[in-house]
């Protein structure tokens, strides 16, 4: 578990967490980027950019 940096609620995390992955806060819906996994550190995910895609 880690705290949502937007609302402070506990965010449940799965086992295979990866730095750079995005997780959602189930309480406020914020998208959070995993900055570190040991210990887990979350930050606000970047906003969608126009050139994102495949």
């Amino acid at each position: 578990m880690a705290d949502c940096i937007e609302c402070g609620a506990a965010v449940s995390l799965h086992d295979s967490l990866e730095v750079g992955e995005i997780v959602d806060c189930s309480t406020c819906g914020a998208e959070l980027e995993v900055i570190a996994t040991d210990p887990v550190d979350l930050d606000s995910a970047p906003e969608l950019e126009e050139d994102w895609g495949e």
Partner: protein
Amino acid sequence: MKVGLLYSRIRKDEKLLLSELRERDHDIAKIDVRKQQFNVSEAPAVFDDLDIVVDRCLSTSRSVYATKFAAAYDVPVVNGPDVAEVCADKVKNSLALVEAGVPTPDTDVAFTKDAALESIEDFGYPCVLKPVVGSWGRLMAKIDSRDAAEAILEHKATLGHYEHKVFYVQEFVDKPGRDIRVLAVDGEPVAAMVRSSDHWLTNAAKGAETDTFELDERALELVEKASAAVGGGLLGIDLMETGVSRSDTQGSSGEREAGTASDANGDSREQSAPRDYEFEDYTVHEVNHTVEFKALNEVSGVDVPSEVVDWLESKAQSESGTETST
């Protein structure tokens, strides 16, 4: 082998790839491009001893430059900067396909509103206006009238980035409610699927339903040619069926029934995603160089990350052999 993964966000696609690489005990250097300084003459330490770099940048602009740097640092990169440059830009993509003789939707490029409006009127309604850089079906406009055309062109010219003043006007392809995505490595298909929607946009990112698809000989030929047209590599090739004649008059989103279809070669065969219509040919509307494959992995029955890593291993090996022999 030691694999560098260029990224700024780890999607499910990258997780699948990382998991497969780790299962095979490959060393991985995750390279968050947001944190790097790419010097023009000296490679960052993270590039040391890499056998191959895989570009999984979410941002197209970063992808184009980061792959250029990887190549400048003499590290084999998938896909290479030349491929990225062609695929990142719809104009270059269309030109490459036409030059290679691959059927692709008829397209005009115009640099002013007036010139673009002339193209739109020439194509007739509906036609399509697309951004030259973009993905996931965003900022695509199906233009149904001159009024709409004038409004969209003015918005793009006034509010947009300068790239939005490169007006990419394309014929509207009356596809049968679906398009086809093929993941291929150097022109060899790994997996294919159809993406179906009642909406004119059938991108998976727009919520299209996906299903398996069996490629016929014509599709195989076009996948190979489209891949070669942009320089080969790990690609997502998008095709649409053209010249569709339906047995009913329900339009493109009617309920589909099992049956056979005649393909462009006149062959008749059972399709994995059955058609209730006939079609004349395919058109290749796009080739993507940082292809997403999670949906393909789920619907196709193919272990896509495994196939991709197989290919990466052989690619790294051949690149290493090239270095040794030169």
